[in-house]
């Protein structure tokens, strides 16, 4: 057998090993209930509860922004983001948070917002046109 093949086989084995162990780095999108039960760092995807209070007062703490999120199960919880309030936050449709539950609050260190973009609009136009013709 050629040495190259041996090296290649070892690499494939290591790759499979690594990717299997990487399963620990992965999770599914959790709900607040999951986060409360397991207490671990999780990702939560949800909708902004636009009727609830959003609080950011930099004079008090420039790294404290709180708001309410409705998770996939429809549960609403207070979320604390340890950062400034991002621009266009009110416009966001879907929010993905990384963090963990601390008491009744979900403390997030990372947040990704999906905002409606102009491409989205285009898509709508195009769809309506396609169904019309």
């Amino acid at each position, binding site marked *: 057998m050629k*040495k*190259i093949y041996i090296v290649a086989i070892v690499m494939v084995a290591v790759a499979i090993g690594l990717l299997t162990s990487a399963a620990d780095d992965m999770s599914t*999108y959790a709900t607040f209930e999951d986060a409360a039960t397991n207490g671990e760092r999780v990702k939560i995807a949800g909708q902004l509860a636009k009727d609830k209070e959003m609080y950011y007062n*930099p004079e008090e*703490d420039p790294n404290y922004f709180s708001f309410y999120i409705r998770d996939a199960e429809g549960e609403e919880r207070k979320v604390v983001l340890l950062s400034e309030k991002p621009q266009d936050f009110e416009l966001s449709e879907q929010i993905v948070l990384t963090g963990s539950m601390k008491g009744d609050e979900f403390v997030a260190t990372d947040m990704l917002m*999906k905002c409606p973009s102009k491409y989205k609009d285009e898509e709508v136009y195009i769809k309506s046109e*396609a169904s019309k013709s």
Partner: protein
Amino acid sequence: MQDIQYVGEHLVPGYIGQAAIMLGFSAALLAAVAYFFATQKRDKVAEANNWLRIGRWSFLVHGIAIFTLIGTMFYVMINQYYEYQYVQAHVSEDLPMKYIFSAFWEGQEGSFLLWMFWHIVLGMVLMGTAKKWEAPTLSIVSLVQVFIGSMILGVYVGFGDDPTRVGSNPMLLLRQTMDAPIFASADYVEQIAGTGLNPLLQNYWMTIHPPTLFLGFASTTIPFAYAIAALWTQDHKSWLKPGLRWSLFSGAILGTGILMGGAWAYEALSFGGYWAWDPVENMSLVPWLILIAGIHTNLVANATGQSIRSTYVFYLLTFVLIVYSTFLTRSGVLGDTSVHAFTEMGLETQLVLFNVFFLLLGAVLLGVRYSSVPTPKKEEATASKEFWMFIGSLVLLFSAALITASTSLPVYNKIMAYFDPNYIGRVITDPIPHYNKYQIWIAVFIGLLSGVSQYLRYKERNFSKYAPKFLLHSGIALGVSGGLTYLTSLWIDLQAWQYSTMLFFAWYTVVSNLDYLFSFAKSNLKMAGSVVAHGGFGLMIVGILASGLNQEVISNNPFVMEGLIEGASEEQMRKNVLLFKNSPLIMDDYRVTYVEDTVEQFTRTFTVNYQKLDSTGQVVEEFNLYPNILYDKSFTKIAASNPSTKRYLERDIFTHIASLPQVEIDMEYRQAREDSLNYKPYRAMPGETISFLDTVPIRDRDTFFVKQYEATVLGVDRSPTHPDYHKEQGDLPIGLDMKIQRLDEDSVFRIKPVLVLREQMLYSYPVQINDISTKVRLNEGIFDAVFGRELDMEYEPFTFKQGDKINYNGHEIQFAGFNKNPEHPNYEPQEDDVAVSAMVSVQGNNGQAYTAQPVYLIRGNSPFNLKDEIPELGLHFRFTGIDPKTETIELMIGQAEGVQQALPFEVATDSLRSDYIVLEAIEFPGINLFWAGTILMMLGLLMSMFFRIGQRRASLGA
């Protein structure tokens, strides 16, 4: 919609554009077919030449058509024909011309065209240089153009009620893409405005990054085309040299494109770093890694005849992965995981087809031809250069596979969900540690291999004889690297043994490559490119470790309230600090002060002063940073926040505005806030001090304090200044010079609120005193109070000679002389003015001395005069005439009747302070090593390419 005769539309460019799209698409298809037959029939020279001619002409026509389309699009964009959907979506009236290119490739269609543009340029080069490879390679390039061209076709295929749309046409009119009531009016063109370019993209990086990246993308097509061509024509050897030249070019350009993305993120966006393992970044890196692996096996193949098969695999894979990355970023599948993915546009199916087609083309062709690819009988020796270069390529492939696997998780989720609707998608919780964890070891191996294999020799037959030299140099290099690693550890904190290992092998690469250059390669220029590239790689790793491990958030205010959130683990996440204007804050080794801010159009620039302090608190260095924010057009939100960075050789200090007070972000909110302030009116005579009580809310809580204030009116200013007030002709401004103090604090504030009467409208310029949360403004009563008693005033004429003195109502008034350069608050000199003022000195009946300077001027043959007054005495002077014969002047003098009135003003004590910024500041040590290293890598690739082009020229000339 019924037939409307629209007015104001420019339809001709649209017709030209549509024709160009169709022609470009068809010509590409024809070129692909003609070049295909030119290759197939290559044994019959005459027939092949006919096909070749058709192929060339078709490709040229294709090029002309696409250039025409691009030209037409620029034409409609520059002329702002908003009836075109693409223009409306990407251009706006206030878009500076320099961003017209950015606007062009901001959209998906424009960026597809940019990609096609480069294919045409590269295709032309191939046509001129590829000789016998022209037909097969251009057949492939044309085929790629057919696929990309289909993305901008915008035609409907299929029957019935639901035809499939193929591509998104950039030349459509707005009214063809959407249904809106506005299209019921024939002159709708007049009524629409453009959306414009996203302010985040209004940046020179957006001008240079996409063309470079797309040239990189397009250039990977050429090695791919060569690989396909070679498999197709079963000429497995002679393509290797041109293939290598092209892939070196591609490696340098694609690499530069990726780096520009990182530099953009670091320098101009507020990401706070150059690499974040974002899916979009990952998927541009992966093809580059594979391409670099391919370059190495290609070198091996050139030198030894080994690894031809793997060279095929790598070049085929590079292009397929470029298309895959296009699919990921443009199909919307990354939506939840990436910051900068496009959202879907209905092109997913086409992108998948594009990808699958070329994947199958490569895989099938390689499968069919696999056994015909020559491989030397003899296996490479373990101590040979080619063996370890090949291992290195496998490591790169391994790295790419890991990154691709993790990045493709959303795709995997989508596929699983397709088969099992109950499948719950998985996601990487913390991407950055996840990727770093594995790539550390990739870097260690690459560091080791690019050192070791540099010393080894191709086709090693007698290693035992060479071994002593090899061991000596390797040993020295290892020793020197150990020393350098130790020295580096004094500068940066390495935190874990894994990082130390990584650093050691990075230095090892640098040292062994330098050693190799001087001890072995000497006069051999051929190796210089390789040494520069690998040494650059080592430096880059050192830079990554320094700037990544030891980046320090210096805006970490230790005084910020503790215990608000349980557990201190998030403490490092607190990266923002609140900075009040002119209140210095100690941050790390710096004393940082927010000095001032200036607004120019939509940009507000902040001056932030940094003073570096030594251990005794002495200032050792001082500099200013100027981060800015860009408001949107309505001044209701921040559209972009641009950082500012102080660069040193060994570190950077990065600063950006994370947030501002709400009243400074949103001018509508500010107005609402101003309207809701609880202003209370007060009055005081000039010179009088009044005191008053007011309740003060304690920052949005329900507690109130009663505080005592004192206000003093010092006088009226008829030509006041105020930071927000810009004087216009015909203004009647009044300012009140005041002092105000809140008695629980020592500071007394000298302020001057201003009220301006301009064309029957009142404009108020209040003064905010942030330290005591107080705002003072004037109301219209001030005009009555100041001017009221002058209404009934009567002037009396007097004639003066210079030096004459008179007595007027007990005041002694003397005409002291002329001033040929009069200064008067309301006088702005114009050309051809003849102006002079009379110097009037007054000894008041109160014992005080005053002066006044009324002005007399002739402008355009008409005499004018500008009055002056002595408000303390109520005396007013007009200079109404000069008699040159008698050398006398006429002065009108009047005195205001009645008592002086108290002057009204209003004070609100609930105006919360708004003079602060929320600042983020990060120190990146050693970041220049990263940039230098990456630039050297690209330079090394280019050097290798130019060397090989030179070699070819020499061999052709010989």
